[in-house]
């Protein structure tokens, strides 16, 4: 895991800021992580913690709206400074992305077959009959029954879960090596959510594809990911193996998140909820962004920002929880 030479994606010191009324707003602040080949990395955090922007910054989608600095290394190529034209060859071909809203992420005016075929013709040399065959194969792979007859259907003729499957099929069209999934199951109901997550993990292990799964649902992340990265206020606060982070959370925020999962609690007791609200990115405290909500905050926490330190399990906290404590956690 620590062998960085084999990492598919290396993000280091990535920062993205937007100019809001002349004032810079740092949505992503000095974020570093690696994704190994075939690994599923989960980025977990509340709304507005910067997880989606991190994802979009990797592919250069945030460029148009803000300033991106730092480094994103994809197989020895630097994506942050790469010109748009070359980036276009990597987007969709090597790195694909799926979105939260399957309702709006497909073009409503084009048939599903046309939309899969479009990606195939943009990134492969297949001729028309081969594209058709591949489209059917892809739809079958993501579990759409009667695939051959559904190519001529429009997105509105599919249910939400089916549309997300179509989206995944389109993303898989050119055999990407990395799939960025931006809350892919948030808009779906729970049973469909399970199916889609299973589909993503199955495809990942079958195709050796790395996945970055962005979610606000710790339960989803725990069930799906090999490794977790917890984000708060635009910064990574804790990273490590899923097992280690869930059973042994060290950052007080992660700890609080896990305590709010209603499992292993006595009946008729009040559920735990993190006090306070997430800080506005425009108005972050000088010290640790979580300090105002943290029960264990010290004077250090208000004075400066803690660095992300540690070996396999890293944490950014001045007063981290002791690793031995047993804690009610999510069933793995």
């Amino acid at each position, binding site marked *: 895991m620590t062998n960085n030479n084999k990492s598919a994606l290396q993000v280091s010191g990535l920062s993205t800021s937007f100019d809001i009324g002349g004032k810079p707003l740092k949505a992503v602040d000095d974020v570093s992580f690696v994704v190994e080949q075939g690994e599923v990395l989960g980025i977990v955090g509340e709304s507005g913690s910067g997880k989606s922007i991190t994802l979009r910054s990797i*592919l250069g*989608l945030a460029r148009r709206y803000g300033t991106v600095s730092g480094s994103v290394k994809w197989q020895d190529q630097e994506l942050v400074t790469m010109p748009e034209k070359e*980036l*276009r*060859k*990597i*987007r*969709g*071909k090597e790195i*694909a*992305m799926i*979105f*939260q*809203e399957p309702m*709006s*992420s*497909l*073009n*409503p*005016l*084009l*048939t599903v077959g046309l939309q899969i075929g*479009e*990606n195939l013709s*943009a*990134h492969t040399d297949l001729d028309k009959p081969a594209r058709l065959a591949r489209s059917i194969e892809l739809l079958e792979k993501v579990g759409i029954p009667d695939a051959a007859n559904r190519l*001529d259907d*429009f997105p509105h003729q599919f249910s939400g879960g089916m549309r997300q499957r179509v*989206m995944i099929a*389109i*993303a898989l069209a050119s055999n990407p090596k990395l799939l*960025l999934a931006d809350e892919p199951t948030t808009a779906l109901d729970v049973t469909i959510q399970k199916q889609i997550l299973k589909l993503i993990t199955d495809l990942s292990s079958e195709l050796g594809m790395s996945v970055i799964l962005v979610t606000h649902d710790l339960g989803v992340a725990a069930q799906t990911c090999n490794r977790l990265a917890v984000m708060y206020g635009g910064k990574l606060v804790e990273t490590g193996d899923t097992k280690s982070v869930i059973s042994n959370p060290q950052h007080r925020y992660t700890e609080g998140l896990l305590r709010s999962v209603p499992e292993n609690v006595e009946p008729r007791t009040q559920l735990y909820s993190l006090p306070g609200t997430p800080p506005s990115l425009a108005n972050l405290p000088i010290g640790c962004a979580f300090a105002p909500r943290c029960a264990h905050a010290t004077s250090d926490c208000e004075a400066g920002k803690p660095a992300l330190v540690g070996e396999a399990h890293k944490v950014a906290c001045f007063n981290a929880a002791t690793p031995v404590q047993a804690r009610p956690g999510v069933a793995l």
Partner: protein
Amino acid sequence: MISKLRRLLPHSSQLLVLLRPGFLVGVAILFSSIILALFPSTFAPFDPNAFNYVDLKQPPSAEHWFGTDNLGRDTFSRVIWAYSVNIQMAFIATIFALTIGVTVGSLVGYYGGIADAIFGRCVDAIITFPFLVLVIAVVAVLGPGLTNMYIAITLVGWVYYARLMRAEIMGQLGNDYAAAGKVMGYSDARIIFRHLLPNAITPVIVYWMTDMALAILLGSSLGYLGLGAQPPQAEWGVLIAEGRNFITTAWWLSLMPGIAIVVTGLGFSLVGDGVADLMRPRG
């Protein structure tokens, strides 16, 4: 092929719009106007420019349905011949404005930034003036005549299409499929013209239908003012202007082309309304 046809066909409930009497009347008017415009010689009983010094300023009769003018020309034939000019106005005066407006609006809406800021100032500058005044000013500079009138209307009119298109494209950009196109490595041109434009164009088409009716009115107004079509060409505005001097003695000279304008304008409006209703639930 079947799927392509299915895509073009509106939903069955929307098809009821097609059976509304207003829409049917509009289609009938539009259809007959276009037929008259294409084949005026078949329907006009006389040469529109032939003088007849025997029958000067004759009131409507069995021979001359709309009477004759001070030179003995048959007003009915002149009104019929004017169809080809006035219907042509509806299309030519709008099609270039539509094309330019849709292209500029799409690009500006997609790219935003400096281009959008410059575009915004241009729009402000143009819409500050009343439409007609600006068109007259441009014609005055270029010189009167049909071609210059088309140029003037296009120069001013594209702004309205572009504004509408820009707003629609920006609305569509909020949908993930636009970002998805980008993520799939598609070129900007492909995203704009294949994905965004077809989804954004509906209101522009609806506006275009009403704009065609307005173009006929505008063209006749400029003809009346002597800035558009030039006499002796038969054009409704020109005909009304020619009859103006005889309004007390030969009322039919101005009234008949006036009615033609009203009926044709109504036809375009009715069809425009129907098209708007047809497209609204989808857009």
